[in-house]
């Protein structure tokens, strides 16, 4: 068994996931080998049922594989327990969801502070870092607003700030523009592109070709396997 190279963020070897669905066993992932290096911007596409979500859950440490290996930043995480996975999610992964998943009746600031609370930072430090991150995504003037007082684009920017606030080694975006109009989608994608330029590693799951086009590399899944893994000529430079 080989330890991955130092600048490898994600490495999976023969990653498999089976579900029991009644009497049937669903083979959601049937041996996936992926390597993603630092500062890559990768899009994953595939029809529904291809195993996109399952792969995302495994990579996001929300779930553990049935078989195979998953190395995240040089650490084998496929055998960790609940609490260790929670800690990995907290410190190394930033999630951006399609439905934003901000806490309602809670200010943008507090939403962004959440990961820092679980990281055990002091209130003062939390406040400073959350404010700073919100400013970085252009929401410095809205930190006291609650989600229902923000537009869709602004909500997603809050979510991005929340994903970034713990300085994770990987940003996982699951259909981040799925609930946005095309103009706002472009804005959000610009933010991701900028983050990539600043050195972030980004994994984007989408079913829209023009959104995937923002990434530099495209992995296509089909029937629980990698169908294609190609560098993207059309990628935004």
């Amino acid at each position, binding site marked *: 068994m080989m330890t991955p190279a130092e600048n490898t963020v994600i490495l999976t070897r023969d990653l498999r996931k089976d579900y029991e669905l009644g009497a049937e066993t669903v083979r959601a992932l049937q041996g996936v080998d992926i390597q993603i290096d630092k500062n890559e911007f990768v899009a994953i596409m595939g029809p529904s049922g291809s195993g996109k979500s399952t792969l995302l859950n495994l990579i996001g440490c929300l779930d553990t594989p049935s078989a195979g290996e998953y190395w995240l930043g040089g650490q084998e995480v496929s055998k960790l327990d609940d609490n260790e996975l929670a800690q990995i999610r907290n410190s190394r992964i930033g999630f951006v969801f399609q439905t934003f998943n901000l806490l309602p009746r809670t200010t943008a600031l507090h939403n962004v502070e959440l990961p820092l609370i*679980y990281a055990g930072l002091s209130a003062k430090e939390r406040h400073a870092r959350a404010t700073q991150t919100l400013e970085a995504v252009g929401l410095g003037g809205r930190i006291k607003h609650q989600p229902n007082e923000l537009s869709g684009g602004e909500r997603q920017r809050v979510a991005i700030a929340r994903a970034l606030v713990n300085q994770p080694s990987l940003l996982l975006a699951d259909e981040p523009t799925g609930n946005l109009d095309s103009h706002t989608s472009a804005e959000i994608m610009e933010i991701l592109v900028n983050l990539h330029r600043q050195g972030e590693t980004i994994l984007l799951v989408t079913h829209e070709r023009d959104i995937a086009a923002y990434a530099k590399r495209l992995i296509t899944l089909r029937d629980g396997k990698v169908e294609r893994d190609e560098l993207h000529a059309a990628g935004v430079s």
Partner: protein
Amino acid sequence: MNVLDAIVLALRQVWAQKLKSFFTLLGVIVGVTFLISVNAVVEGMNRYVQEDFAGSIFGINTITVQRVYSRRGGREDARTRRREARNPDITLDDAQVLRENVPDIWYMAYSSDRFMPEVSSGQNTRKNVRLIGVTDEYLALQGWDVVEGRGLTRIDDTRSIRVAVIGDAIAKKLFPEDSPIGHDIRLGPFRYRIVGVLKRQGGLIGNIRDASVVLPFGAYQADFARQRNVVEDLQIKFRTSEAMVAGEATTEELLRARHRLRPGEENDFSIETASQILNAWNTVKNVLLAAGPGLVAVALVVGGIVIMNIMLMSVLERTREIGVRKALGARRIDITRQFLAESATLSSLGAAIGVVIGMALAKLVDVVTPLPASVPVWSIIVGVALGLLVGLVFGVYPAIRASRLDPIVALRYE
């Protein structure tokens, strides 16, 4: 997440749903309110009975001899009543023997009383008065102070002089303008001259004293008594409780001997002391204090179950939030702590509201009724602690359920 963060979060949650929180807390509020107010009233009653009530009816270190038990706290069955109906009267001769033979008497007095439909000064009339004939030491023994004029003397008694000392309420009613001293009052066909006015007592017991007309025993017996030579109520006061115990024993022996009772036969008279009424009160108090915790417990358990239900609903409603928190790095213990803190904060808040309402009720009882009510500090502490405990105990199950949610399922929950 530390405990303080969890509590702040909990308070925010409670505040966001004020009305729902209030209804959730009703059970706990009722339980703690009950605990605080009942304890306050019992405590107040306790003090009242020990300091005022027993003292003013029976007096400290005082024995009261009567033909039958009149102020018993417990139940009386028909058989006891039939037996007591055959009891002989206490006579003046009995009193004489007791005065000569009971050791260490401080004061001794006897009295008879009756209801009088009215008393009049000529101009003014007061209805419903208590007419009471007493011997000279009666006022001193009872601790009834005379604020104007004089009390009654032995000479008033032995010569059956028609003089009277009147209660405050009667003095005010009959002589609203000037001093009653020296004026006559009419009691039925008789005229009595007022020589003194009693100090106002007020309160529950005072209504009786303030509406009394006190006469020398001799004159009372001549003009109003139903039977001659009969003493309805005989009291002996001692300086110490030891002397009282010895005096009570001697009194019992003397009366048994005079009534020719055989050993083993029951007394055909009653001797009561303040300690007996205290015993009766203690019985009542113990019933209250024994029933109290049961009722409090029922209210708190009901309150706890309501809290548990609401928390389970809250967990369901906030499934997605739990998923998000887990995705962002919340461990099981963080989620457990969050929901436990929420239920504990919620129920402690309920307990605090209960304490406030309970104290307000106690204050109301104190002001509106003559009963003093005081909230003992321990009951506040117990109340809040019970509230906290209920929240913790009934919060465990929902909190654990929340912590066990699968983040993937929770994030997808609609």
